[in-house]
């Protein structure tokens, strides 16, 4: 049975008990904030153009308020007196099979959970938080697209979302280390593995060892140049967490526990999340809520750390080394949901001769279309590429030849957009840009580096 049919079959087989259980699951996901959000919409429609889906397909069902209305209709019908007494008046609808189908379409098929609508709602509704609650409900009812669930399952089974074995990971680290040694001309340059008590534990998106080893090499080069006391882990090294996309705290918590266990095992002081938007939001913001525990260490984005190195004078770059026009993509989970807005800009202004912003940018930036797990849900591929048209146009308007994107999911989508919309751009991570612009790639001695030994 194909992935698409498997979801359809589950939808068709829904029983009244399933629906009743689903409603209980939904209720359990609502706090006072969501209960308020679900009763605030005035249907002014001003959020419509905030959404890249609606901008590119013009469909009513793609307007954020319409997606919100599917969830609010159920809330009204089951939890408000007016919705029970006069459902037709306010558009209240019970949680039945048709409604479940509408939810699947709204929250998986037409939403990347980018949160842009939340910042544009005139009344202050955090729309994507409500849509996330609906997603989580569907996931726990078994109504998640199977290919998205498979990524979660692979993480849970193997410790990383691409099923890379320990041996393959360690072998890859070793040859990247050798490449880096040659590149920086320093045979002492290292990618330490499982270094007990290192100041920094660096975590990686599995796409780097699998498909983009140069990105990992670039990050290692930056650490080397900064003279950092760092390590990667032999296990529990994958920073991704598709529990953020399945919206299931059980998934998210179980995957996040891998990183926390690595920190405990190695006794590092700072958990550094490599360039990955959702990985950062999951580890920095959601993991503590999923695990109901405040982490006992600092969790930072590699972007923040690189900017700290610059401010401490530990990295030296020459912007004349990269002269082509470059622009920056703001991943929704790094910027809007993550709050990391300026470090990446400060870094790029140092490293690039011709850096231009997209319009709009920062918290107002558009999703590339690949967020929210869209890249792993094959049934929505066409919609994903279509919705990415907004980002493609943003890039084209900058005239840039280089697009810097501090997120591997975004990079995958941008690479597809590059082909689909014939943009003719090169896409790199921030670390790749920094590594390319470095003027000294040999680690400074402790006397040189003005930085107190952090250990």
């Amino acid at each position, binding site marked *: 049975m194909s992935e698409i049919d498997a979801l359809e079959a589950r939808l068709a087989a829904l029983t009244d008990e399933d629906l009743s259980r689903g409603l209980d699951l939904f209720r359990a996901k609502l706090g006072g904030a969501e*209960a308020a959000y679900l009763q605030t919409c005035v249907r002014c429609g001003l959020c419509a153009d*905030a959404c890249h889906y609606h901008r590119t397909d013009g469909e009513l069902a793609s307007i954020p308020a319409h997606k919100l209305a599917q969830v609010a209709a159920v809330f009204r019908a089951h939890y408000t007196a007016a919705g029970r007494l006069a459902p037709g008046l306010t558009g209240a609808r019970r949680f039945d099979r048709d409604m479940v189908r509408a939810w699947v379409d709204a929250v998986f098929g037409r939403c990347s959970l980018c949160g842009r609508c939340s910042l544009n709602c005139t009344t*202050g*509704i955090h729309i994507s938080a409500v849509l996330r609650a609906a997603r989580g409900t569907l996931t726990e009812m078994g109504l998640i697209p199977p290919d998205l669930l498979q990524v979660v399952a692979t993480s849970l089974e193997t410790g990383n979302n691409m099923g890379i074995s320990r041996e393959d990971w360690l072998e890859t680290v070793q040859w990247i280390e050798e490449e880096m040694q040659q590149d920086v001309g320093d045979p002492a340059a290292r990618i330490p593995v499982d270094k007990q008590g290192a100041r920094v534990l660096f975590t990686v998106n599995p796409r780097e060892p699998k498909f983009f080893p140069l990105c990992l090499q670039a990050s290692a080069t930056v650490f080397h140049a900064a003279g950092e006391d760092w390590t990667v882990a032999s296990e529990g090294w994958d920073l991704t967490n598709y529990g953020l996309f399945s919206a299931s705290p059980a998934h998210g918590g179980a995957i996040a526990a891998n990183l926390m266990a690595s920190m405990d095992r190695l006794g590092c002081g700072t958990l550094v999340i490599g360039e990955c938007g959702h990985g950062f939001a999951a580890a920095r*913001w959601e993991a503590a809520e999923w695990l109901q525990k405040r982490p006992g260490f600092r969790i930072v984005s590699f972007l923040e750390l690189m900017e700290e190195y610059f401010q401490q004078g530990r990295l030296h770059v020459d912007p004349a080394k990269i002269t082509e026009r470059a622009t920056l993509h703001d991943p929704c989970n790094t910027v809007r949901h993550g709050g990391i*807005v300026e470090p990446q800009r400060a870094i790029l202004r140092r490293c690039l001769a011709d850096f231009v912003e997209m319009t709009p940018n920062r918290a107002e930036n558009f999703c590339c279309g690949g967020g929210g797990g869209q890249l792993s849900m094959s049934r929505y591929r066409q919609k994903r590429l279509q919705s990415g048209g907004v980002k493609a146009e943003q890039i084209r308007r900058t005239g840039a030849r280089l697009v810097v994107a501090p997120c591997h999911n975004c990079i995958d989508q941008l690479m597809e957009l590059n082909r689909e919309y014939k943009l003719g751009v090169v896409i790199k991570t921030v670390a790749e840009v920094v590594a390319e612009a470095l003027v000294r790639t040999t680690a400074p001695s402790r006397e040189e580096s003005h930085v107190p030994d952090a250990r």
Partner: protein
Amino acid sequence: MEALRIGVGICGLGAVVALAVQAARASAFGIRPLHAPAAGSATRGVLYAFGPGMSPLAKESTRTHPWAYALGVAYHLGVFAAFGYLLLLLLGVDVAPTAALGVPLLAGALGGLGLFVRRYASAPLRGLSVPDDAIANLLTTGFVALAAARLRSPAAEPALLAAAMLLLCYVPLGKIRHCVFFFLSRRHLGRHFGRRGTFPVRH
């Protein structure tokens, strides 16, 4: 007339109690304790959400729809003015016709009418709409227009009081309850994005 005034008082009290109950029921869904350390300030986020974040320039949605925003502002000013005027009338204070009251009332009525036309002239907005949208608008716009009429002529007072009763009875049933939920939602939104350091938004 006295009976109508008492009726308005009772309906107003009923609306306030119903809204308070709805807000309490929403809050009873609970506040989850947060464990992730804040990067920014929840308080600053809330101040931003109720301050600069309400400016028409703060959001693309309002920057690109200045007319809808202006109609909305006029409408709400008219509604506040009409309720203020109604309160004075209930307290037996008759205000002489004055531009300070007449202009917002007239602008409010026109704003409401403009939003009604906007809603039903636009296919996407029609698609989003439910009967509540028409009823809420007509009741509110009618109430504001009658307040403007009463300012010119005391003869319009019974109609104004009747319209006020209808409106107040309807408030807890439909979208007008955003008069309370707006504040709850914006506060939650401000806290959330303030903690994360996204609010205040830097452009």
